[in-house]
């Protein structure tokens, strides 16, 4: 199988969507002439023209609001917000408009828009260019949220998001952009709402998403050397999330650790833990553990940042704690 980078998979998904559907447009800051600040839309302007792949001013609120209006009027806009930290500026459009239009207009309309945005640290980008804010969006009824972890899912989830009739936030971990992965010759959309098992195991379930799934795999390899076999579940989709898949895995392993790069407090992990403590209570042989970032801004210094981002050691430590 050929290998491509995560970023190239996104680029291919955008290109294929533009090719397949004349109502798809791509816009955002520096997505057209510059091909995206990380290069996700490189070459698309040349292929599809500046009418369909175009630059906007640095106006995040209007970018997202225009996507809502365009989606209500027949386009399928895919907008890029350069860093997830900047989505603070799109909240009215996403929370009050995109998320609610279908419901509050009595089902007359849907808002088929996609907002792509990179989260995550590891690049020394500091407190305003590294945050993982996906839980905010997952908390809003009417929005869908996905977070791919490799090139196959980066392609598949983005295609599914663009085809979806409802607004979808696609969260990409920028530390994964350069990651290479094997892909089939024919890449396919991946249905939203389905988790996948990345590693089978019998002793503990590690539930994660995005870049943190790789941390979980690393931790699983270390634990395997100690005779502990973790199962690693990649959520892929955060809203809706695959409750059935998590429960099924928990029913096999009877132990659960939820891992993400986002701040642990009030995060995605809290929701999963609370839900499994309820519907999975009879399956649990140990308390559910969470591993996430500490309750502090993402620091700039390499020394600080590497201590901040949840490590494989932290995941392995949590597993050992609940196995003890």
């Amino acid at each position, binding site marked *: 199988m050929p290998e491509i980078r995560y970023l190239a998979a996104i680029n291919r998904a955008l290109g294929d969507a533009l090719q397949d559907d004349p109502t798809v447009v791509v816009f955002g800051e520096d997505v057209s002439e510059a091909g995206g600040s990380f290069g996700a839309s490189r070459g698309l302007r040349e292929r599809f023209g500046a009418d369909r792949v175009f630059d906007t*001013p640095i106006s995040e609120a*209007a970018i997202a*609001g225009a996507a*809502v*209006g*365009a989606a209500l*009027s027949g386009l399928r806009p895919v907008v890029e917000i350069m860093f997830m930290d900047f989505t603070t500026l799109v909240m009215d459009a996403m929370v009050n408009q995109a998320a609610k239009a279908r*419901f509050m*207009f*009595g089902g007359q309309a849907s808002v088929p828009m996609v907002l792509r945005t990179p989260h995550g640290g590891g690049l020394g980008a500091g407190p305003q260019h590294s945050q993982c804010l996906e839980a905010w969006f997952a908390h809003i009824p009417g929005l869908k949220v996905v977070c791919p972890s490799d090139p196959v899912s980066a392609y598949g989830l983005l295609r599914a998001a663009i085809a979806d009739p409802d607004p979808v936030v696609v969260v990409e971990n920028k530390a994964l952009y350069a990651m290479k992965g094997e892909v089939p010759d024919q890449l396919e959309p991946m249905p939203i709402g389905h988790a996948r098992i990345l590693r089978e195991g019998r002793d503990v379930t590690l539930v994660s998403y995005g870049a943190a799934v790789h941390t979980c795999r690393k931790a699983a390899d270390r634990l395997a050397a100690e005779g502990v076999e973790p199962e690693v579940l990649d959520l892929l989709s955060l809203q809706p999330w695959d409750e059935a898949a998590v429960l099924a895995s928990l029913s096999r392993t009877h132990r659960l650790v939820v891992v993400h790069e986002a701040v642990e407090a009030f995060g995605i992990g809290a929701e999963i833990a609370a839900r499994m403590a309820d519907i999975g209570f009879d399956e649990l042989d140990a308390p559910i553990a969470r591993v996430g970032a500490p309750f502090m801004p993402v620091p700039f210094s390499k020394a600080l940042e590497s201590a901040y981002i949840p490590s494989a050691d932290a995941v392995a430590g949590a597993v050992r704690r609940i196995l003890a």
Partner: protein
Amino acid sequence: MKTKPSPKPSTTPPAAAAPEAERANSPARLLELYGQIVLIRRAEERLIAMFADGEVPGFIHLSIGQEAVSAGVMSALTATDTIASTHRGHGHAIAKGLPLDGFFAELLARNAGLCRGRGGSMHVADMSVGMLGANGIVGAGLSIALGSALAHKRLGRTAVAVAFFGDGALAEGLLHECLNMAALWRLPLLFVCENNGWSEFLPSDKQIAFKLKDLAAAYGIPHTSVDGNDVAAVADAAAEVVAAVRAHGPAVLECLTTRVRGHFEGDAQKYRDPADMQALSERDPLRIAARELARLGIGEESLEAVRARVEERIAAAVTAARAGTDPDFMAAKADVYTPAEAL
């Protein structure tokens, strides 16, 4: 089109706007516009009574005194043109052609409402007539209309989008973003400011340090000011401006108008000078239109016939709405996302 030099409303229609027969002050057309104002006025007066009786839940913001803006602007639009409205949107909705039954049913929170009782006054919408929704967030309609205009242009339509906003929204940063993008991309977007002089409970001159005319000029967007209570003037200005937007790109139409019932229904308006309130009746768009119709030789019996038809329509719509049922909770809950069977 040039930015008008005078900040005062120009009550005379712009020159060379439309052939004489289509001018707003032709008797037939003015009578039609009068009918629209009466319809909006009587619908809202009916809401006042029903609100007082506790039949209309939630908050309502009435456009009494501003109806000529809705009637006049919408007279220049076609069914495929789109509008994004505000929290004070009943007039926009009715003038854009929403079915009256569905409008009243929505205000009464019935299942037969246009939004199935999930939105209410601040979210009335009808996609089938290009009404993209009233809005509970000040200024939010600006970017929705911007996106709609973008879609019209990209999809090769001749349609225009209209963003309604009040002078209170002049203080929102989103207005700057949208004016800039509309100008950059020459979008078919008309910005209609309903300047009623009030930003919620404060006079706008205590909140806004600039004139919209000057702001528009900064973006190179033509600005027209009109007496928003003179429906013939609004209609003529809108006809000219909408044609220009369709052909060349964005424009601002500032309609100087009057807010009669306060920020929300039930607002005692103790912050207003009684003399100013007294003076409002002189600027009543209904009186101005009726006076002009009389001048054109239209008899009172014609006006009475218009009013009688409106009363019948409203009575029928209210009766139908009252007979409606409450929405079903599970059906509402199942409609947060597009149902799988619709995919």
